[in-house]
């Protein structure tokens, strides 16, 4: 029996062209959301090492933070799953993102998970970690601020 939230995650990933372009998948693991970026040669930025493009790493972190914010609401929803309400949520907008590159991303699958440090009515601060084979050996981390909704019109 597929959890309706998994279907929604699959639909969300399929509905965003850029996620399809990257081949990014969204998975639920122990009530946490994990982004999976299966390796493909077009993700390479440095063909000498070879290493993932730094922009791909930034994109993985940003997408994971945004979907993490959407997921936070979905996971905390009580009562029956309301797909229409989930789909109607506005997409959080990135205000800023700082990426800390710890080591090259290798030519293999990459994973990321977000921790929502603070989420208020309008703004959220999110920390994201990315790893490959070993969850404790990060290749990048990032912090971003996101706008959840605009100020009410005066």
């Amino acid at each position, binding site marked *: 029996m597929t959890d309706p939230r998994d279907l929604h995650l699959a639909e969300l990933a399929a509905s965003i062209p*850029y996620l399809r372009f990257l081949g990014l998948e969204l998975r639920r693991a122990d009530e946490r959301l994990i982004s999976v970026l299966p390796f493909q040669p077009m993700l390479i930025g440095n063909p000498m090492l070879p290493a993932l*493009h*730094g922009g791909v790493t*930034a994109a993985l972190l940003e997408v994971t933070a945004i979907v993490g914010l959407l997921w936070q609401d979905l996971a905390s929803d009580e009562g029956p799953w309301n797909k229409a309400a989930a789909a109607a949520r506005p997409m959080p907008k990135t205000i800023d*993102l*700082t*990426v800390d590159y710890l080591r*090259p991303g290798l030519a293999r699958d990459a994973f990321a998970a977000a921790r929502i440090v603070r989420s208020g009515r309008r703004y959220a601060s999110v920390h994201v970690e990315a790893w490959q084979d070993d969850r404790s050996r990060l290749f990048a981390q990032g912090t971003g601020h996101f706008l959840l909704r605009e100020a009410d019109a005066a």
Partner: protein
Amino acid sequence: MTDRRATAQRFIQALPHAAALGLEMEEIGEGRAVLAMPYDPRLIGDPATGVIAGGAVSTLMDTASGAAVMSHPTGPRSTATLDLRIDYMRPATPGQVIRAVAECHHVTRSVAFVRVIACDADESRPVAMGTGAFTLDLGR
């Protein structure tokens, strides 16, 4: 300059992900690079508006920054991003080219510092601005 630009465009084409995004080198030299990303529906991040994903803009800005470092007069052999902070001021207008101008404004023996700005057709209102620190291998 044309030779150098052709060399730079080959350099970009040799980066598989930069080629996948269709990035085009417009200017390069003396620690400064101008890189363009044509509008491409595959890169849309918000299907409701058609706005290009932040990640694609980040990639454009990171690539322009790395190219600016590589073109610095000190002649680096290689570089890698240590840290990149990007502020997203407004969504890029759908359908327009996004152009990043990166400037490597200071280098030490081991580190290069970069400022980068991304604009669409309205150059008076930037889409995003970034500051980055890059590794610098001078091979000495």
